[in-house]
């Protein structure tokens, strides 16, 4: 930038011709950057939304893949809400997805109507979240991980061993999906758009909660619990509520899972599956809600696309997780944020009247 040196000293009172040009250029840059800060989010959202709708209009392999991504993304975002904002990383998330799915499938086996089955599935997952939360949020950090892992394994064990209830290894197929008026989920396109809608609703719900006073105090509890407690916040209750919200949203993902796959079996909730959700969150970026959705996209691609070409894709996935933990603790979203921060820094400097 020519004349930049002069601009620095005279920016406050532009008098010379070169300095005025520089200052004008700065102002244009500032305007462009501010506009980009305001518009990037909505624009990216709109583009992704249009792409998703276009992909889901088809009836082939791609739309199935996208559907899987959306369902897993809901669970990953819920886990991120718990892990990234409340500081509670759960290794039992697949278990609650399984509870939601099994709840619907088992209720239908017992001749309940599809809508009643959905109610039962969500009710069971909510009740379980409310009860297990009392035990789970008594501890934090490593102990919480261990306890949720144990819970997840127990839920898997029930699905695997309690053959009378869960049909064991074979799993339970789901034949009829609910319908209301013209909206019939048995129709493929309607189901796909419904999954997309639920995904958007849950994503907006979670981002809204994280920006609410509750979400802010939740972050406070994570970073300095003693201080929040001293300020009069009921920190245990905060963690408990975050847990219940995360478990319930994961249960919703479970209901969608069984709708999409029309089958639920113990494999969906085994140890490896629990680890995958953590992988999605860490890969995408802990504490960003949108990052883990991106993580879910990548992991589903690993699982369903890369596995076709690379037989040792699990090794690759494990190494990817190790690499992210070692080199980029913020995950993908950390990179996005780094770009955003640089833009903010430039804007701040320009507003102070300096040169970029």
């Amino acid at each position: 930038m020519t004349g930049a040196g002069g601009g620095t000293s005279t920016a406050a009172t532009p008098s010379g011709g070169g300095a005025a040009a520089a200052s004008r250029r700065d102002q244009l840059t500032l305007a462009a950057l501010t506009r980009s800060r305001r518009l990037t989010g909505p624009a990216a959202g709109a583009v992704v939304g249009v792409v998703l709708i276009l992909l889901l209009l088809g009836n082939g392999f791609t739309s199935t893949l996208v559907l899987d991504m959306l369902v897993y993304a809901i669970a990953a975002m819920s886990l991120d809400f718990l892990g990234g904002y409340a500081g509670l990383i759960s290794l039992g998330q697949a278990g609650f997805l399984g509870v939601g799915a099994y709840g619907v499938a088992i209720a239908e086996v017992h001749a309940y109507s599809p809508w009643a089955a959905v109610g039962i599935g969500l009710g069971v997952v909510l009740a379980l979240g409310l009860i297990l939360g009392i035990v789970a949020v008594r501890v934090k950090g490593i102990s919480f991980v261990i306890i949720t892992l144990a819970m997840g394994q127990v839920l898997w064990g029930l699905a695997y061993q309690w053959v009378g209830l869960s049909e064991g290894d074979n799993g339970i197929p789901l034949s009829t999906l609910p319908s209301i008026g013209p909206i019939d989920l048995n129709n493929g396109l309607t189901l796909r758009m419904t999954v997309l809608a639920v995904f958007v609703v849950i994503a907006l719900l979670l981002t809204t909660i994280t920006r609410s006073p509750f979400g802010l105090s939740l972050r406070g509890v994570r970073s300095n619990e003693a201080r929040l407690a001293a300020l009069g916040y009921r920190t245990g209750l905060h963690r408990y509520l975050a847990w219940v919200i995360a478990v319930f949203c994961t249960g919703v993902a479970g209901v969608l899972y069984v709708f999409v796959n029309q089958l639920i079996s113990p494999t969906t909730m085994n140890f490896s599956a629990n680890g995958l959700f953590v992988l999605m969150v860490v890969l995408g970026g802990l504490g960003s809600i949108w990052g883990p959705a991106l993580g879910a996209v990548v992991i589903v691609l690993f699982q369903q696309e890369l596995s076709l070409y690379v037989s040792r894709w699990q090794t690759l996935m494990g190494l990817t997780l190790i690499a992210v933990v070692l080199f980029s603790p913020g995950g993908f979203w950390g990179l996005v944020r780094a770009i955003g921060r640089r833009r903010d820094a430039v804007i701040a400097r320009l507003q102070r009247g300096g040169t970029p």
Partner: protein
Amino acid sequence: MPQFLAQTLNGLTLAGIIFLVSSGFTLVFGVMRVTNLSHGAVYLLGGYIGYSVIGVTHNFFYGLAAAAIAMAVFGLLLERTLITWLGRSEMSELLATLGLIYVIDDVALAIWGGSPLTINLPGILGRSSTLPVDGIVYPNGRIFILGVSIVVALGLYYLLRRTRVGAIIRAGVDDREMVSALGINVRRVFSLVFMLGALLAGFAGVLGGTVLGLYTGADSDILLFALAVVIVGGLGSYEGAILGSIVIGLVDTYGTAYFPAVAYSILFIPVIGVLLVRPQGLLGRPTT
């Protein structure tokens, strides 16, 4: 009654194997504050290596030794590379070792395949004998495993309570900074403890391979046992690992025998009970 007695013996055998795995897990956590989620995978890898060495040498004890040594070396490498690189961040270590599980499992799957394998015990250990009580016929191998784990437990107890190294390790559990300040090379203690944990896990893998079998998923099964043990006994407590192993081994065996539909979940009863009454575990100390 004879059936109950046989189940109790089965439970204690299982407790022995679980103890070998969980004692290493809890010591590593106690001294280094590292939660090594890949501990179960190390157990399974040790079992597989033992299986192959036995296949080549036709000697069970060579397999046992090879698995223990191989895993000790693996543990040392792991501690010197990944764990050191991560630089004492509890959650990163947990996540990285979670990633390692996928790698180890996948490599094991590539080498040993997906079908379950069983290690056969040699000679007299492979037979059964009649016990003096109630005329129960019981496999010698299980008695052998029980005996070996008791010997290891006593040996570890002696190491921890009666030797200088043990004193340093116990001091490390209590106050790492102080031990370091006293001029003791904490790095070396860390490597030693991590190696010891991996050695025990590999050793347990071969013993476990004889009664539990080696299969994809055996690692997460044994990891769950170890985690249940440390919750019940207290994370970082050696005596807690012994007590917890006995509780979990017996509960799981009785559960499988008498309530097969919910066997896996019955494990959760002692875990929840302890969490509600004493969150730090029966013999654990409250975290500060």
